């Protein structure tokens, strides 16, 4: 089982009487990008924290890069990169100081200046974190996650607060890391982000995996929905319907769309909330 970066069986974690993770199974292959989706409170951050050696578990078997994160030592930690959901608070340091400082924890870090440029903060490198906007601070978190050149990168909602361009640039960055062989475990609420980055997707609700697979495996795409201003129809023969509509409207059909079921449809089905529209 050398190709497993992460292998989880029967993971459990409770906080008092709140069960955060209940009997969770998960595999992440080496070099793979896996996106974890799920409602608020589903147990995503708890799972990420346990796997990245930040939180002890109550039960279950866990192997991360072949080791048990509960027994993590410094060497093990230096193989991981982590972008947590809650940001650190080194507010009086400058961007450059913080990134250099973190690079020092790793045996073969990437060039801090390069990483700062990659997250688009070159012009802010000498500013204190306190003086940054919300999205700029989140970019620092991402820089700290990747500066150690990790084998395995944990990203817990990394792009919250990113502007649209920054989000696209971030996708490029992660794709480049994945192409170099980095394994990535990502949580996100942006389904387009999951689709853009992930080789496979796991949907989690109430602390359990509801389904895992490629987008094609999760989405049932036999039926196509044709919609236009004034109506919509689900059909497996969209061409005929469009021809019919075109004839009816004599040319332009206003607001015509042809869509296969989306990842959003699959997500809502899996967490037990069918789309009402």
């Amino acid at each position: 089982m050398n190709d497993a970066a992460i292998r989880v069986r029967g993971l459990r974690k409770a906080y008092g009487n709140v069960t955060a993770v209940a009997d969770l199974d998960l595999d992440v292959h080496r070099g793979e990008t896996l996106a974890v989706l799920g409602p608020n409170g589903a147990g995503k951050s708890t799972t990420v924290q346990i796997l990245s050696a930040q939180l002890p578990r109550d039960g279950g078997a866990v192997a991360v890069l072949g080791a048990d994160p509960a027994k993590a030592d410094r060497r093990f930690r230096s193989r991981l990169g982590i972008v947590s959901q809650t940001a650190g608070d080194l507010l009086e340091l400058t961007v450059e100081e913080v990134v250099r400082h973190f690079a020092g924890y790793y045996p073969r870090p990437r060039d801090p200046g390069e990483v700062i440029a990659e997250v688009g903060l070159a012009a802010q490198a000498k500013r204190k974190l306190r003086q940054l906007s919300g999205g700029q601070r989140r970019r620092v978190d991402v820089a700290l996650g990747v500066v150690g050149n990790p084998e395995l990168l944990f990203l817990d909602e990394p792009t919250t607060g990113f502007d649209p361009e920054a989000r696209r640039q971030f996708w490029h960055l992660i794709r480049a890391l994945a192409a170099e062989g980095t394994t990535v475990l990502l949580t996100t609420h942006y389904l387009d982000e999951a689709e853009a980055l992930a080789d496979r997707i796991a949907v989690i609700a109430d602390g359990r995996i509801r389904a895992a697979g490629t987008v094609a495996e999760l989405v049932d795409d036999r039926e196509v929905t044709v919609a236009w201003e004034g109506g919509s129809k689900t059909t497996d023969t969209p061409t005929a319907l469009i021809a019919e509509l075109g004839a009816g409207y004599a040319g332009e059909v206003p607001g015509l769309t042809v869509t296969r079921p989306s990842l959003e449809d699959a997500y809502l089905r899996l967490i037990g909330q069918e789309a009402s529209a």
Partner: protein
Amino acid sequence: MTITGIDPPAVEVSGLTRVFSGGRGKADHRALDAFDLTVTPGEVHGLLGPNGAGKTTLCKILSTVLLPTSGTARVLGLDVVADAKRVRPLLGIVFGGERGLYARMTAGQNLRFWAALYGLGRRAGRARAAELLDRVGLSARADNRVETFSRGMKQRLHLARGMIGDPRVLILDEPTVGMDPVSAHEFRELVEELRAEGRAVLLTTHDMAEAEALCDRVSFIDGGRLLRCEDPRVLGELLSRHERVRATGVPEALADRIAELRGVEAVRRTGPGAILVETDRDGAALPVLRMLVEAGTTDVSTAPPTLEEVYMHLIGDRGMAVRS
């Protein structure tokens, strides 16, 4: 309400400027630069722009927690500096993130505390807190401490807190960050209700689909300056007046054949297998659609330019770099 009998705008900002000093010989930073904005009662107004554009700075000044360097800002006719005490009770404020909630108190205690600050009596405060917890889907966790909440649960509580004082004007700074897709959609319904009740909403977001769905007008801000203020439905015309067709899963050869069709102005590659077909006359989109669907492409739409495209067009293609 005023002497002339005309209701003042919910928000009126004029020539607003805020300069942060750089400290220790570093250059000053102009976070807002002669910014103008008007939001009327019953309007949902989007404030859109890149990281560091000045959105939060503006929201903070309107919320009376940050002073402007120059210029004026009024809420329902009251100056946010001179009349700060009278402005505060009119406002509901929601900032994204972790701050502003008492971690050691339960969700219910937090809301009842804020209700009291807004002058509600004990019974009214309880009722209001319960109603709002229900509205944001947290009833079952009302008696749990906030420190035990997941990120998205905290964000929902923020939203409830913002509404506790029955505010006429809501300042929502990235209110849906961290919310799951279902609650983000419920948030949209909530904003529709607020609008229907005649409240004014100033909303910053990086989610262009959210802004497009909710906003009556949007203001684009970059480098502290107003770039443009417009109805999002009008903005699309900046880019194109004719139908466009968007499709994914399109092989190269098919894209080439589409480019040959009459009335097709351009076929742009927008991603792996994704294309955007621009037409230059009415009626040209339908043959494009037919060709795509006949070839088995099942993810196709005709659509005016999205707000995200307009954003990219206006803000320009500067990559991820943040303006200094």
